[in-house]
Structures are given as C-alpha cells and as structure tokens.
C-alpha cells in the first residue's frame, strides 16, 4: 500500500512544490497522478523514494514511513524511472542482474533472468545487446523487468509512456495491468491522458503542488478528460 498523509514539500528557495497531498493506493490498484511539468509529480516520486525530505506530512509504504525508516520503505518499493536510466554500455541481462543483485533481490539463475526478460516482452536476441542500441520502449520494458525481479508490493512508475511508440506503450500497459492483477499497488505519474482511462483505477490531478481533482475509474469513464485537463493546466478551475 502506498499512502501520503498531508504530504508537503517546500524547497529552501521558498517554492511550495507539494501542498498537503493525501492519497492511498491499495494493493491491486493503479493510481494515476496527472499534471503538467512542474505540477509536483516528480516531487511526489522523490518523497516516496526518500530522495528528499517532506516539510510536513508522511509518506508510507506498507506502513513504513519513508522519512524515518527509509531502508524498510525502499525494500517494499520498486521504481521505474523516466527516461534512459540504465548503463548503456552493458547488456540488458547485465543491467537486470546488477540492479537485482545490488537491490537485495532473491538469488536468481541465468534462466530466471531470461524468463523475466521474456515476460516483459523483450526478444531473446536482445538479451545480450547493449542498452545503447535500444529505443525508449525497450528500455522501459527493461525497467519493468527490474521491477518484476524485485517483486516489491508497491510500485512507483514515473512517466512510463514518455517517448514510447504506441505499440510498445500498449505492451507496457498490458504488463502494468498484470502487475496490478498480481496485487501490486501502483502509483503512476503521467503527463499524457491517452492511457489513463484504460489504466487508472483512480486518478488525481496535480496543479502547482496541489491535488485539485480526484476521480474514480467510473467517474473517468463519463468525463471529458481532455477538456478537464486542459482547463486545469490553464489554471482556470478550482478544486471540486
């Protein structure tokens, strides 16, 4: 379970990056956090990863407070970062092995690693290719392989579809949905709306650090999401 209780962050320069965020992502649930650049999504991720300390409130992973027990919280958390985040001169397999081993994942055989890579849809012949030869979609799949290998109950996915072509994105959606079906709690930050209806069990809109809107899957189905998003990003509406 991923939980934020009045979670706030004000940077030393006085900027309020996050203002009393409250959210709770249950096991087997996908929570999409939407918002334009600078809305505070990355701050939320950083707070849950313990990379920055909250100025108020708490960030909890399965009850472990990230601020006071960061190691336990990170033990329960897997993270898919935005962009190219792997060692580009190493092969796919080497990257997966390294992040699994160093993260304290279970001891795996070569077959185990290959099984996981197959599970995220990476072709067999790519296992020993260097990451530098890969596109964003394949790299994101490798990221999901790392997440799978860690097998943590709570997952943070930061812009998983950013720069990914539609076919690869559809494959990623399928993997993410299966993770939900396995009982993971997923907090997904998104800038694009295209996958929200399919993915989100619940969604929240962030604007200038404040959660200005929260919707369930049912509500999202009948909402003109694009219009809402545009209105909020223009800053014309207040929270409902």
């Amino acid at each position: 379970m991923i939980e934020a209780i009045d979670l706030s962050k004000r940077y030393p320069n006085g900027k309020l990056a996050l203002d009393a965020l409250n959210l709770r992502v249950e096991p087997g649930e996908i929570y999409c956090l939407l918002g334009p650049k600078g809305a505070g999504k990355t701050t939320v991720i950083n707070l849950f990863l313990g990379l920055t300390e909250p100025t108020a409130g708490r960030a909890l992973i399965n009850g472990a407070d990230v601020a006071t027990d960061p190691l336990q919280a990170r033990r329960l958390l897997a993270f898919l970062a935005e962009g190219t985040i792997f060692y580009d001169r190493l092969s796919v397999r080497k990257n997966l092995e390294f992040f699994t081993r160093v993260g304290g994942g279970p001891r795996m055989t070569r077959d185990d690693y290959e099984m996981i890579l197959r599970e995220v849809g990476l072709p067999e012949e790519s296992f020993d290719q260097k990451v530098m030869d890969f596109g964003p979609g394949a790299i994101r799949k490798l990221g999901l392989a790392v997440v799978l290998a860690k097998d943590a109950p709570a997952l943070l996915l930061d812009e998983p579809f950013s720069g990914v072509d539609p076919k690869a994105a559809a494959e990623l959606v399928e993997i993410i949905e299966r993770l939900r079906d396995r009982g993971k709690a997923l907090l997904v930050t998104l800038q694009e709306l295209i996958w929200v209806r399919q993915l989100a069990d619940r969604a929240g809109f962030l604007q200038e650090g404040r959660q200005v809107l929260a919707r369930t899957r049912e509500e999202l189905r009948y909402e003109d999401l694009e219009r809402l998003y545009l209105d909020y990003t223009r800053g014309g509406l207040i929270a409902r």
Partner: protein
Amino acid sequence: MVFQMSGLSAPVRSLRDDGRGFASSVPETRSGDVVATVFRHEVGLAARSFRFWAAAFLLLALMLLGAVTSAARHRRDATGQADIEQAYARRLAGATVADAAEISHPALKPPWRLALVVDGGQAATPDTLSQPLSALEEPALRRAAEENPRLPAGEPLDWLFGIRIVLSIGAFLLCHGAVCGEQRGGTLKLLFSLPISHWKILAGKFLAAWTCLAVPFLAGAVVSLLIAASLGDLQLTGENLLRAALGALAGLWAAAFFVLLALLVSSLTRDPSSSLGVLALLWVAAVVVVPALSVLLARRLQPLPTDAEINQQMAAARLTAGREFAGEGERWRQPRWAVVDGYAWEKLSARVEIRRAALQEEIRRQLLGGKMRQAFLARTLASLSPPSLVQDIAERLTGTGLARDQAFLDQAWAFRAALEERVRRLDAADPASPHILFFREYMSPRPLGPDPLPRFAFREQTLGEGVSSAQLVILAFALETLLLAASALLAFTRYNAG
C-alpha cells in the same frame, strides 16, 4: 504476451508464490554483498572504458621506462664515482704523510640504489665533497658525473612521478563522473531507490576505482624491480625489497587519496565536465602551482647571500684573520732556513692561514646550511599539496631526498675530522717533522705506510630511522585522507539524485 512466473527457479518462485507476503519478500542485503556487487559492476564498466586502459598503459609504460632510465642513471653515477675512487687510490699510492695534506680526499654519496622507486632529487644534488686537509686548498662540492648544465633538467621517471602525475590523472579520469555521471544518466536515482545504504555504493565505487589503479601500478612496480635487478644495478635483498614495498605502499595510499578526491568532487557537481574541470584545476594547483609557490616563498623567507656578498664575507674573513694576528703571517721560508729559529714565522703564518681557512669554512658551511634550510622550508610549504606530501613520505621512508643530502654533508665533515686525526698521528710519529699541520712543506716526508688512511663510507639511513622521521608527515596525510573520506561520504549520502 506471456506473463507466467512458473518457469522461475524454485527459490525465486517460492518468493513470488508467497501470496501477499510482499513485505518480507525483499530480504536485507548484506553489506559485503552490496559492496562486492557494486565493485564487480564498476570494475566491469572500467574494463570497457578507454580511459582505464589508457591510464593503465601509461602507468606501466612510464614505470618500465623509469626502471631503464634509472638503471642508466645509476650506472653513470657509479662509473663517475669509481673514476674518482681510482684516481684517489692512485694518488695515495706511494704518497707521504706530507702529501696527504694537499690531496683532495673525496667523500662520495653513492648513487641511490632504489632510484627507480624514488629519486628524491639525488640525481640533481652534489655527490662528491673533496676536502684537502691543507688550509691553503679549498674543498670542492660537485657531482661525480658532471652533466651539461645547459641541458634542461628533466624530472626523474621514478615511481613517485607515476604516483604524483599518472595515478592522480588516472583517478580523476576514472572517477570524475562516478556520481554526477550516474546522476546525469539517471542510474543514480534508480540506485538510491534500492534498499541499500548509500555508503555501500560509495565503498564499492571507491574499491573498484582504487583496484583499477592499484593493479597496473603494482604490476609496474614488480616488473620495474625485476628489470633493475636483471640489469645488475639492484640487489633484491630483503632490505631493498622492504624499502620498495614501502614506496609501493605510499603509491597505493596516494591512489586511494586521489580516488576519494575525485569521488568528492563528483559528488559536489552536477555534470561530469564540471567535475573534470574542477579536478583539473585542483591538479594544476597541487602538482604545479603549490610546489612552485613554495620555492618562491622559501626564497623570500629564507634568503641566501649573493655571490658578491659571499666574496665580501670571504674577504672580510681574510682581513679578520690578519687583524687578529696584527698583520703577521704569510712569511714562509725553506725548511732548512726555518729550522734555525724553530719555525717561529712559519708556525705563526700557519696559525693565520688556519684561522682564515676556519673563518672561510664557516662561511661555506653557513651557506650550505642555508641552502638546506631553504630546501627543507620549500618542502614543508609544498606539503600543503597532497602529491608533495606523498613524495615527502616516500622519500623519508626510503631514506632519500633532502635528509640523505644532509646526512652526506654531516658524514663528510665528520670524515674530514677523522682523517685529520689520522694524519696528525702519523705526523706525530715522525720526530723529524716540524709538525706544522697541515702544510705540506712542514710535515713528515715519511710514506703513509701499509696502514691506509680511513676511507669514506656513507651510512644509509636505516628503515627504523626512516619510519621514525616519517611519522609526522604520515599522521598529517592520514588526517587529510580521513577528512577527505568523511567529506566524500557526506557529499555522496546527501547528493540530490531527484
């Protein structure tokens, strides 16, 4: 798409089939495991990089070249000194006690046998002090194998050159992006999201970079020792090996220091080019600016008299001696005439000359002492720079450098005193001698005899003395290293990877 975990190995599957027991599914990794994993990973990355192979090749090549050049240097100095020894032996053969007054008795500082480890400036400083006993002759301090002073003096290619120049550059090239490069690539954020203490990541990175430098350095050290031994210029005795091991230890310590410095700077910057820029500035400051400034400052704080001032002092000494003896002296007669009044004038003239020589010798010693003090001061000031501090440690441990020069001068002067005493006794044994020492015409004409004059034998510093003299600088460097390690750890753990 397949999404089936049943193909996983039994231990992994058992974890995944653990229902909802995720909270316990990621076990705590042992410190050693994390450090070892990061270490292997970093070594693997380095082995794929051109920078590592370039630094390793450069280090090895320089150390091997250093072994060959130091062997050549050693042989040249040894040959030069052997020539002096042979000429001296020829001069002594058949010489009389009186001849011993005018013969230049050489004290030779032997070429440093471990010059491939640390030269310590030995190739640049005088190694021969020729001292006649007569007050009428001047001593000469010079190099046995004279070089053309118009040739530019290059820095010796010893291990210390490799340590100060190549190891530092290698460490900076390998580690400048160790932290900020990972931040830029995004991998640092992923690493920081793992349930491991940050110090373990830093420890793995540190050990990997240090190993990447230590292995080629140690390989170069072993091969260069073998080359020096095979060329016949170095006996691989226990003591020599121990001194070489101390030199290598200083190198390994310096490598650790440079890696820590690079990790600190990388943890304080946001991109590799800034990190490399800062490290380049620090390198220039430590290797070029601080030593140069320390020389300038030492000249200012510990000035030496000019040649004109020395000449004035010498002339004043002559006048002083003359005044003290009321203008007497410089009245020398043939012995057959002088014997008439018991050599009265000659004894007085000898006292005047001895007094003058003593005053002038004191000026020379003051000048030499001033030069040594100036050099020690420059070295102390340069110790603000870690590479110079490492050089100081290595020189002290191996018994070379300024301390060896100072020991040579002290021992050479003591040798002259012993020589004087011996010649004095030989002259005293001849009742026919006027005993006006050390003036050839008025001393015993007997042959020196079968009992030869004492020969100068330089006593090298023992290992214990070296360790003892290095204690303070070792402590200073240890404190610097600890401070650096703590700073690097603090900067890394507080690094903003978000």
